[in-house]
């Protein structure tokens, strides 16, 4: 039940995209988001889809992994689609029932918005699928570090993030273990009313919290024992360095932006 959390799951590999600097990938993802919002028609979207497929191909990521991340947002996509379908005012009505009406413009709008959401998620998935959580937090820390001059705790936030990410699988495993242990003692997590089921979770939650605190305590102790004292003056084992490939990647996305602006100007397929 807890094994299907793909959002933010790293897919190891050694491709051009995997090797890019995490800072580059974060910035490019932001540029990608801008592209999605810039595009005003289906031609632009076609370009973006082609771009995503190309990236997936280069990174050797199977498409099913890209689409798996869509499951959690499926409901949002459907609601967006329906709202736009029924709520868009238009002259050329196709169907009308009470306050609900569907126009050609509505269909176009609904498809456009749903498509936009799907592209946003699949595109950002490329970042998390090709970047290990450690590199990702490294990249974020480095990008935010200029802000630490005005008191923004960039290093601390990055450390918190990596620790949290590191312990998600551990906690999932622990949850399964305790669930089984309590089931062996006859606990029933699956039947009964909502209140009864919520109460049944107590034998699971108490040990889970206790062990989470114990783990946190032990981790803090272990970090102190190895003289960890925050980000100041701390050097990295693998310092981030920009390479030529990062420039190439930037140019690729810049080209995409230009192409999308051009398709908007040309007016082909624009809604």
């Amino acid at each position, binding site marked *: 039940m807890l094994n299907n959390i793909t959002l933010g799951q790293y897919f190891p590999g050694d491709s051009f995209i995997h090797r890019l600097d995490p800072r580059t990938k974060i910035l490019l993802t932001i540029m990608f988001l801008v592209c999605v919002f810039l595009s005003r028609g289906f031609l632009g979207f076609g370009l973006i889809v082609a771009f995503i497929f190309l990236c997936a191909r280069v990174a050797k990521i199977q498409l099913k992994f890209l689409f798996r991340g869509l499951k959690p947002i499926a409901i949002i996509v459907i609601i967006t689609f329906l709202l736009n379908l029924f709520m868009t005012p238009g002259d050329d009505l196709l169907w009308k029932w009470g306050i609900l009406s569907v126009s050609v413009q509505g269909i176009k709008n609904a498809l456009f918005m749903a498509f936009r959401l799907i592209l946003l998620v699949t595109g950002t998935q490329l970042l998390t699928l090709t970047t290990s959580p450690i590199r990702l937090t490294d990249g974020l820390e480095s990008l935010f570090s200029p802000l630490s001059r005005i008191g923004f705790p960039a290093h601390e936030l990055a450390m918190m993030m990596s620790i949290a990410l590191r312990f998600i699988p551990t906690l999932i495993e622990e949850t399964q*273990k305790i669930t*089984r242990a*309590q089931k*062996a*003692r*006859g606990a*029933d997590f699956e039947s009964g009313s909502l209140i009864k089921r919520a109460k049944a979770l*107590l034998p699971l939650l108490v*040990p889970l919290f206790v062990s989470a605190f114990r783990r946190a305590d032990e981790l803090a102790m272990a970090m102190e024992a190895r003289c960890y004292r925050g980000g100041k003056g701390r050097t990295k084992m693998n310092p981030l360095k920009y390479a030529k490939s990062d420039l190439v990647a930037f140019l690729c996305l810049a080209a995409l932006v230009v192409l999308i602006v051009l398709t908007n100007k040309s007016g082909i397929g624009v809604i």
Partner: protein
Amino acid sequence: MGLDVRHLTYVYNPGTPFETKAVDDVSFEVHDGEFIGIIGHTGSGKSTLIQHFNALIEPTSGSVLVDGEDIFASKSRAALRRRVGLVFQYPEYQLFEETVLKDVCFGPKNMGKAEGECASAAREALRLVGLNEDTWEKSPFELSGGQQRRAALAGVLAMQPEVLILDEPAAGLDPSGRKEILDIIKRIHLKGTTVIMVSHSMDDVARLCGRIIVMEKGRKAMDGTPAEVFSRVEELEKMGLKPPSAALLAKRLKARGTDIDDSVYTLAGLIDELKNKLGGIKQGA
């Protein structure tokens, strides 16, 4: 009651690149009143295997029969779980109630017993594991590690299982805690409970069990009395298992020319053997 394990196979992550066979076609029978030790290297499938015995995980194929009834087919898994008690590794992490007594009551209560019955079963279990009355009203989190382990064990015993399965019951305890918990298990066995104990300590298994099953890479590699299993020292060592220290010492003594029966595997057996032989030398001289 008897357990009959038939061609049990369990595959983790089937159909993905991470597919692994944790248990591979394992069959054996457990008879009433036996004390079985299951040993094997880390990742040999011991823990996965025993979780099948009270239907916590379903096998990919194969079955487990309790008194001739397939536990995965039967609708009354809850009833079966109370007959087969499973104590997980580090069971103290499952403690959650306000007091020790209440925590031990959790199992019997889930079985639908009346309040009074629960409490008396819990008290009996707590006495059996040697926790004094002054700890019963304490929070389980106030106890020492060894006491917590015993309280958790009592939590399963209070359900009065006919078969008790333990996964590394002595792991992470200091020597005196180890001895205490193992002595308790021995006492429980003597009272008539069938016991299956997973352990990586050959010495413990050699001392306690009447039958040993050796697992390797998900398969049953050996199954027999301790004398049979520990006579195959080379094979055990090939699997990365260290034979009991008494057996090793006997083998080395023999290799150095001492006239000694090297099939002993417990400390007591080795001492007897040495007394015999050394005594014999004296008489001869």
